């Protein structure tokens, strides 16, 4: 049991937190701009490398480099929207989906050109885990990631429920044309969607680097689990996406626990879990757990 918590559950919650932060943006973009953003994972990668640069140059701990990572990802997202998505806004959304495939490639190859393709780590060396009650062992980085996600979730909830921009975002997600009739400046709402989505993606990217290492496929590899999380939570429901992310992360880590003497699934097939959940949701329950919108 202790082993299950230390080696499966806690890493699962950590991974789930990362998926959750990435999935929020996917869910919001889906809800407000109405398209599946295939470059979202690569925004995470941008953030991770942004932080890496600051860590290299200044030597500060990666957590303190997050503001820079966030700024870089926001700039990347807003420029991509302006250059590549906005010109296609009046067309069927499928063109924007295709464009986002291209943007994924553009971001990733830019990163590869600038930073190279070798994987990097923020901090070298072994870190002693924190030990609680003599038995629970939790790595410091896991505590940091999970705690930050809890705080961010709280802030996001307050923002969406009580702030003016949060309400406008929900209104646009409900009905963009009515929102314009009601006097909401949808361009501004779209801008804030990118800002929040990219900021959370960048934080998620830094967390991946903190948890494992920084490499150029980091975000792309997480894209499908994040889609799965966004779907599970219901498209256009950012808080649902957080729940979805946690579920996917925990399930993914825990399927290889030997519940019945043997691992349910070989660890090498771990990532298939998210794909299968995603496909099953698409087919059986595209509105997710919390009645998200349907395309």
């Amino acid at each position, binding site marked *: 049991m202790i082993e299950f918590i230390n080696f499966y559950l806690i890493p699962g919650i950590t991974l789930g937190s990362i998926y959750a932060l990435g999935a929020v943006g996917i869910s919001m973009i889906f809800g407000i701009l109405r398209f599946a953003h295939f470059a979202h994972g690569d925004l995470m990668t941008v953030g991770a490398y942004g932080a890496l640069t600051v860590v290299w140059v200044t030597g500060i701990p990666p957590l303190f480099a997050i503001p820079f990572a966030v700024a870089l990802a926001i700039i990347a997202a807003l420029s991509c929207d302006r250059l590549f998505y906005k010109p296609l806004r009046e067309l069927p959304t499928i063109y924007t989906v295709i464009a986002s495939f291209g943007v994924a490639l553009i971001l990733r190859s830019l990163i590869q050109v600038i930073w190279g393709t070798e994987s990097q780590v923020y901090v070298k060396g072994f870190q002693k885990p924190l030990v609680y009650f003599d038995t629970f062992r939790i790595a410091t980085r896991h505590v940091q990631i999970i705690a930050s996600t809890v705080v961010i979730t709280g802030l996001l909830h307050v923002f969406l429920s009580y702030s*003016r921009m949060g*309400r*406008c975002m*929900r*209104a646009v*997600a*409900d*009905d963009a*044309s*009515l*929102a*314009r*009739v*009601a*006097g*909401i*400046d*949808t361009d501004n709402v779209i801008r804030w969607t990118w800002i929040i989505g990219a900021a959370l993606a960048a934080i998620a990217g830094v967390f991946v680097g903190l948890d494992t290492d920084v490499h150029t496929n980091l975000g792309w590899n997480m894209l499908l689990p994040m889609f799965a999380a966004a779907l599970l939570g219901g498209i256009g429901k950012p808080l649902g996406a957080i729940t979805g992310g946690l579920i996917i992360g925990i399930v993914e880590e825990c399927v290889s626990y030997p519940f019945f003497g043997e691992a349910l699934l070989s660890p090498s097939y771990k990532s298939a879990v998210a794909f299968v959940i995603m496909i099953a949701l698409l087919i059986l329950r595209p509105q997710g757990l919390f009645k998200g919108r349907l395309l």
Partner: protein
Amino acid sequence: MTPVVLDVQHLSAGYGTQAIIEQINLQLTEKEIAVIVGPNGAGKSTLLKQIFGLNQHLGGDIRFNGTSIVDIKTSALVPLGISAVPQSSNVFPTLTVSENLEIGTYASPPADKKIARERMLALFPDLAGKLGQAAGELSGGQRQMVAIGRALMSEPTLLLLDEPTAGLSPVYLEKIFDLILQIRDTGVTILMVEQNARQALRIADTGYVLANGRHAHTGTGAELLANDDVRRAFLGGSAGQ
């Protein structure tokens, strides 16, 4: 002479390049109620949407208090003092009633939010107990009230309503028409599309009959109700009804 609030001249509009309405002229003076009637597909909604810049402008002009608004983007019209309630899907379903009303104040904050809200609840007492409920879970009539309430929260001087009584029971229908008169009495000019033509024309100062995207008849509400052509073609039944 009362000032002209809305002046539509030779307006043509449609979707893409296809014109749905052509050569439409309307004039509304302050505190006037104008009603547009006509068969399904006549282009009534298209006209109203076009005043709000929601589809393709193909010619003519729309003036609000003397200035042209054809090039102003939709979301910038509310601050000018125009509010609209579309025909269908006119509330934000996942937002609560209270949030729907709140949204109405963002583009053009009323002088005093609290007073505006209290006035709204006096107008729609049915909503008082539903403020925390998602608007999508309300009945059709209640939704209509939320929609009108949202439009009024910005304290507009011109209100556009697209079939505010669609699908409502006779009781609600009377309520909504009463409300419209009350709203007018607070100084609002109203342009509305109505299928319940007979009742609507009774409260209308001016009526426009639209057919195939063009004016078929224009006159005061009473004139149209008395006009045999209009009765036969658009109102059904005889004058005595």
